């Protein structure tokens, strides 16, 4: 059930990751549009986690419940951490931190997909 949700999340997160590399290569700190995209990424991640939790609550979750809960909970803290970092440290390296968060969100969403499709 989560595929229609996780695929867009992965796409948005990959764009955030690439954007981070581009801003770092250009030697600039993350710009406004990049922050908005990070917020969009986080929004998508939150929707995914809420839907995931509800589906587990209704008994439609994957067999590995504990692992799924770990992923659904852990994934929501990544982007806020990167955004906070990007605001407090105005250097090119903040873009790479956003890249790391974006890649991690994409990989974790992929793992969630695998878990759900068991």
């Amino acid at each position, binding site marked *: 059930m989560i595929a229609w949700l996780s695929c867009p999340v992965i796409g948005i997160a990959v764009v955030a990751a690439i954007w981070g590399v581009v801003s770092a290569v250009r030697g600039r700190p993350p710009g406004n549009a990049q922050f908005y995209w990070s917020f969009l990424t986080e929004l998508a991640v939150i929707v995914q986690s809420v839907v995931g939790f509800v589906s587990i609550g209704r008994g439609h979750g994957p067999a590995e419940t504990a*692992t799924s809960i*770990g992923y659904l909970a852990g994934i929501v803290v*990544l982007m806020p951490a990167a955004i906070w970092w990007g605001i407090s440290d105005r250097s090119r390296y903040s873009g790479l*931190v956003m890249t790391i968060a974006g890649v991690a969100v994409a990989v974790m969403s992929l793992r969630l997909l695998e878990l759900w499709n068991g």
Partner: protein
Amino acid sequence: MVDPQPTRSGPGRVLIAVYGLFALAATSRAVVQLITDFHEAPLAYLLSAFSGLVYILATISLALGNRTGRGLAWATIGTELVGVLAVGTASVLAPKDFPRATVWSVYGIGYGFVPLVLPFIGLFWLWRTRSRVDQPGRQPGR
């Protein structure tokens, strides 16, 4: 005597982010494993918990960036390197003893081999930012 460059400056920030991510990944993995089925593979799960602890300490020590943090970073990242090589080799030679994966199993294959590369980058970064007596007034990150 030139003071060492703080480990949290410049690219060091990216390194701290990656270590923080692995601290989160390894620790939560270990918590789930220890809570759900500790009896199935106690050795693998305790190694998971150990690797999580190593990543947490490495993250904190790199973020501290001072002399104390630097010493702790050498120790924890050195431990990480030994750990990933030892657990990686053991899991290849005796897979039966590692029925459940840890972050370091098969040199971190489940995490794109990042756990194998990361300690080398960490040690290189510590070496790169070390204190140097021969170059007063050098530019950081020359």
